[in-house]
């Protein structure tokens, strides 16, 4: 295992210390429980918080700031944070208008957030939750834990953050979050595995000529292993299931997000964007907004994911609204 780290058990705290040193204008880091709280957020708004395992940077801590998250709860690497963190974050950002929890659909995340929400409710804080589940690689069946929450989470945090900044109330924020989640779909693939610092070994062995299709963001294997293919074929493997699923049709405008898994060079992401753009154009769908880069990652995994969200005027306006966080910034 080769990593720019000291001891595996200190990775998260030391990276948090780096964030605190780098972005004092945007955020404050609290330890034990570890939370990242937006600096100088107005109190008279709905608080927006999210959280999940570490190793997905910049998600979520990199999205704390104006127009996006009010707090983030980083767990151990690939491990859901504990309820204490979400409770502390909820308390920190509650200004009386309630707090929205943005949760990715993983058993651990859902349970830990649920426990925190119960504790917060017991303190009289109004909490609403949205669970993202946009990964079409997983069959959406009542017999499974359901689809994973992946790329849509990033886009949703930006869009709902903008609405909260503009004064939307808790119910509207929750409804908006559900709308974005319903209108979004994702799928990812990996060329290489990644290594959890504590484990010291890659999560799976992948021969030099094979790749995993339908991976999540936790270094777990995907739905199937196939021979490495050309970028154009990989783009079809990802875009196909997304387009077959609801809700995309000819004439739609989408926000297209081509995401790197952490170890993928940008030149490859632009090349994949070119492939995605060709596929969508061929399907009569046009890209009205785009995001290209490594925003929801799996440590140093090489690979990419596509996320499409069907856009309308409301979502476009919120997407375009000013945002100022360590990882996403425009309009200010």
């Amino acid at each position: 295992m080769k990593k720019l780290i000291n001891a595996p058990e200190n990775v998260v705290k030391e990276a948090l210390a780096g964030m605190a040193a780098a972005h004092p204008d945007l955020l404050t880091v609290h330890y034990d429980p570890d939370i990242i709280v937006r600096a100088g957020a107005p109190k008279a708004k709905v608080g927006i918080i999210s959280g999940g395992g570490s190793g997905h940077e910049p998600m979520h801590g990199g999205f704390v700031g104006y127009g996006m998250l009010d707090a983030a709860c980083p767990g151990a690497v690939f491990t859901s944070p504990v309820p204490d963190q979400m409770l502390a974050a909820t308390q920190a950002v509650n200004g009386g208008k309630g707090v929205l929890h943005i949760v990715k659909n993983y058993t651990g995340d859902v349970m830990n957030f649920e426990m925190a929400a119960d504790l917060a409710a017991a303190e009289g804080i109004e909490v609403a939750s949205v669970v993202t589940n946009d990964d079409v690689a997983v069959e959406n069946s009542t017999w499974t834990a359901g689809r994973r929450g992946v790329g849509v989470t990033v886009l949703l945090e930006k869009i709902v953050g903008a609405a909260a900044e503009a004064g939307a109330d808790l119910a509207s924020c929750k409804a908006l979050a559900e709308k974005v989640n319903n209108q979004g779909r994702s799928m990812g693939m990996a060329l290489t595995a990644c290594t959890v610092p504590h484990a010291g070994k890659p999560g799976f062995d992948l021969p030099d000529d094979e790749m995993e299709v339908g991976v999540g963001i936790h270094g777990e294997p995907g739905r199937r292993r196939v021979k490495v293919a050309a970028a154009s074929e990989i783009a079809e493997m990802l875009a196909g299931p997304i387009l077959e699923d609801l809700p995309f049709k000819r004439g739609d405008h989408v926000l297209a997000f081509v995401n790197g898994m952490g170890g993928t060079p940008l030149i490859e992401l632009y090349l994949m964007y070119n492939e995605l753009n060709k596929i969508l154009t061929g399907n009569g769908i046009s890209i009205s907004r785009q995001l290209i880069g490594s925003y929801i990652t799996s440590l140093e995994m090489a690979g990419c994911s596509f996320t499409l969200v069907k856009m309308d005027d409301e979502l476009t306006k919120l997407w375009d609204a000013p945002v100022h966080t360590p990882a996403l910034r425009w309009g200010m």
Partner: protein
Amino acid sequence: MQITAEHVIKFIELVAARIKEQRDYLTRLDSAIGDADHGVNLDRGFTAVLTKLSSVADKDVGAILKTVGTTLVSTVGGASGPLYGTAFLRAGMATANRFELSGDELLAALEAALEGIQTRGKSTRGEKTMIDAIGPGVDALRAALAAGDDLLTALQKGVAACEEGMKATVPMLATKGRASYLGERSIGHQDPGATSAYLMASALLEVAQGA
């Protein structure tokens, strides 16, 4: 024989030691069908639990188990944190103010724990999770006690069933937890949570045997 508060402290200490020993093994199991953190998660949790034990050394069984539960909830994270945390919390509630547990009281505590996991995890048996080890173990313990076995014999039968349950997760298709994302590819691997559950069960037996 009875299970005393002292036994429970010893049991928790032994679980912590076993988890630390088996940390990499558990993580390796989780690496095959999950995200390679189960051993690390539990080791972090039980290491924290150890630092709390002295504060409840002279308390009743319920207080000890509740402290274990809240500490696990606050330090483990992931799926196993809320699940094991809830299990110990519920077992603690079932044993409030008790300094000694009869076989039936122990059974009631374990049933409460199992019930807590199932409620929190919305899971049933056969989904390739920790309850596929805990469930059969509790069943066997109940049956043995009902048949008039002494506690040690009953525990032995319970742990044996728990081990069988753990092994039976190998051919199962996962439909809960992270392993469910793998679909058919989850088949052929032993569930990490079932394995840690068996480690805990055998630690309980070991303490009872030493008693």
